[in-house]
């Protein structure tokens, strides 16, 4: 009834190819963005949203969304399975740290971009095997990235400024004389970076570059025949994906943790980001955000919810039981969603949209 595009005519090519062709979508998305940028800080100022929400929920959610988006470009759009996401994040984080440390007066955003470019360079090098191998074999070779980068950063003291424990402590985020100290400002900073990069990604996947990725993904032989050069396309996907992961890693270090050890970027993190892509929906920008929400936020809510149940029902559970239940429920939900919709949460949203169009008068 409300979600109907009847009467919305597109009279120009630009109108036809806009990101949200349906007016309701535009309005809805505009509202979400406005809420994220203005509504949330306003609620915080009124004391409705606490600091905890920014530092523990929203900021990591956005950062992991960006990392998942990076991997989604590579795995979802270009079809190259990668297990090295955390390594690219590490390159971004340690790269940005060194640019900030070694060059006086380095603007933070430039350091992030340079860190991302370092990650892109590493991505290109480790993407080379993708020209000859595919699928699980490629996953195994990207696994090498994961171990190599973490080992290399620990091994060469220069990267960590010869810190004995191999740990780096991120500098403060300063821009135009303003220091991003409070959790709110850090949230807005992350939100800004993530928004710009997401817009960029969305446009990238809709243009020639994105189409070439999808062509390679669907059948590389055919793509080659119709004129896409596999080497350039694949390496481009590795570069762009690693750049995104690198910036996400820098944000992880600067806007979230503050102090990071190379071990923090371990295989476990790579897997978590891969799960975000699988659960959220491979080959979907929205899916990256949904997947990140699922993997990052759901365990937290389960934990809070179980705790709430325990206290409100006065259950005297033995310690450790609620942790185990949480893990089981989380695992069960993953299986449930994958059975219900193997194409991820993004696809679920799409189906919902189709249904909504017909509601309340289905054929």
């Amino acid at each position, binding site marked *: 009834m409300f979600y109907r595009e009847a009467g919305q005519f597109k009279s120009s090519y630009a109108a036809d190819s806009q990101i949200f062709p349906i007016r309701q979508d535009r309005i809805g998305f505009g509202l*979400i963005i406005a*809420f994220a940028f203005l509504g949330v800080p306003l609620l915080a100022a009124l004391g*409705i*949203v*606490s*600091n*905890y*929400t920014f*530092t*523990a*929920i*929203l900021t*990591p959610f956005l950062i992991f969304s960006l990392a998942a988006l990076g991997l989604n470009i590579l795995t979802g759009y270009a079809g190259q399975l990668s297990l090295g996401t955390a390594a690219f994040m590490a390159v971004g984080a340690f790269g940005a740290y060194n640019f900030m*440390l070694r060059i006086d007066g380095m603007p933070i955003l430039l350091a992030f971009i340079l860190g991302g470019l370092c990650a892109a360079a590493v991505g290109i090098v480790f993407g080379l095997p993708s020209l000859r191998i595919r699928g699980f074999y490629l996953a195994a070779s990207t696994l090498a990235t994961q*171990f190599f980068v973490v*080992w290399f950063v*620990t091994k060469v003291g220069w990267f960590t*400024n010869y810190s*004995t*424990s*191999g*740990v780096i*402590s991120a*500098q*403060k985020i300063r821009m135009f004389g303003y220091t991003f100290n409070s959790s709110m400002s850090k949230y807005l900073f992350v939100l800004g970076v993530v928004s710009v990069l997401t817009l960029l990604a969305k446009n990238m996947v809709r243009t020639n570059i994105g189409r070439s990725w999808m062509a390679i993904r669907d059948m590389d032989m055919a793509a080659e025949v119709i004129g896409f050069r596999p080497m350039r396309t694949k390496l481009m996907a590795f570069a762009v994906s690693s750049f995104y992961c690198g910036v996400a890693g820098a944000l992880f270090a600067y806007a*979230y*943790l*503050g*102090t*990071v*050890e*190379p*071990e*923090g970027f*371990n295989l*476990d993190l790579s897997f978590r980001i891969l799960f975000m892509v699988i659960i959220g929906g491979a080959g979907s920008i929205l899916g990256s955000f949904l997947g990140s*929400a699922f993997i*990052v*936020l*759901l*365990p*937290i*809510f389960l*934990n*809070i*919810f179980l*705790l*709430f149940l325990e*206290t*409100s029902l006065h259950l005297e559970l*033995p*310690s*450790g039981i*609620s*942790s*185990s239940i*949480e*893990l089981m429920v989380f695992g069960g939900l993953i299986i449930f969603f994958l059975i219900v919709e193997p194409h991820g949460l993004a696809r679920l949203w799409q189906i919902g949209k189709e249904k909504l169009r017909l509601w309340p008068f289905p054929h």
Partner: protein
Amino acid sequence: MKFIKQALVVTALAAAACSAYAQEQFIPAIDYRVGPYAAGGSGFFGGAIDYMTLVNEKGGINGVKLVWEECESEYNPTRGVECYERLKKKNGGAALVEPLSTGIAYGILDRVAQDKIPMTTLGYGRSDAADGRVFPYVFPLITSYWDQAAAMIKYLGDKAGGLDKLKGKKIVHLYHDSAFGKEPLPVLDAYAQKLGFELIKIPVAHPGNEQQAQWLQIRQAKPDYVILWGWGVMNATALKSAQRNGYPREKILGVWWAGSEEDVIPAGEAAKGYTTMTFNTPGNYPVLDEIRKKVYAAGKGNLEDKSRIGSVYHMRGVTAAILWTEAIRKAQEKYGKGKVMTGEQVRWGFENLNVDDARLKALGAFGMMPPVKTSCLDHEGSGAAKVQQWDGVKWKAVTPNWITGDKAMIRKMVEESAAKYAVEKKITPRDCSKEG
């Protein structure tokens, strides 16, 4: 957005459900009871909670009861930071925090100073945090990695008949190839130069369940001692590989993360005779009996398996809780007995701890841990450790006394490293002569 709304509702309800009562001191327990490190997490936090229950049974700290809330971190920094943020302001605010995880400790290192909540890192974390001028809110109590490495060399020297006898000897440092395993390298290198022994560094890649190549290398080198700076499955594998290669376990000296029941039992016979560092003397103590009698007999114990009472991790948890409660007690002496302390006040308590032998006797923990005396300059408080040996059934202390390495040398390194950190982070170190 839906998730956030849910979160708000749930947290609001949760907050309403357990609003703070007067005279309750809140301690968040950011623990981990599932996942690969569950054995350590459940033992340590089980011990800490058991001791806090015992304190409550005996009337609290001058009438102030301790309350705590567990939060599962899965040893994952992201979850740990979330737990910290969730619990830091609850029930009137956290008095202190102890994550028992290097990753989480680093994740909240900057936050604790901002939130004014002291953090203890018993036996792990940044060694240079012992310099309280640069790290006012971090307390690597009892012994840091660096002091432990120094104590190791002291012990090996004593075993050889004096530190000078180490000249020309070969010591292998078999380590987990990570920040954790590399942490003691500067100390060991400094000692190698000073005492003239040969230090052979052999890294083992995580997780370390295959060490044939490394032990072949050790067999060729024929070292006098092997320092095992291991973690998790790597420890049991090292012991088994040592047995296979005929290297005597008595000559292997483990770091304390390699020295719990969980590390040696999987190795079976191969672990017999193996020695490790520890900051607790294994054995039974009145405080443990009291926990059995007053906590477990009343059905309030935290461990599911009662036989784990007094195990290495459990005892470490009890030790941590003793130091926490002593710090709160000390803070109450200054800021008002029977009052709930703020994080800032507890910080003062941690900085002025004086848990001497007499106090330990009164607590029923004499000999269980070294005496701890902290100050503004020294947030570590002791630096002593012991060596324990696995006899196939249980741990036994080998050194009757607490051993410490070259404290002056370590202190110099701590100060240098902390000063470097202060410059990097633009921190102005406190002037300790002005602290009361």
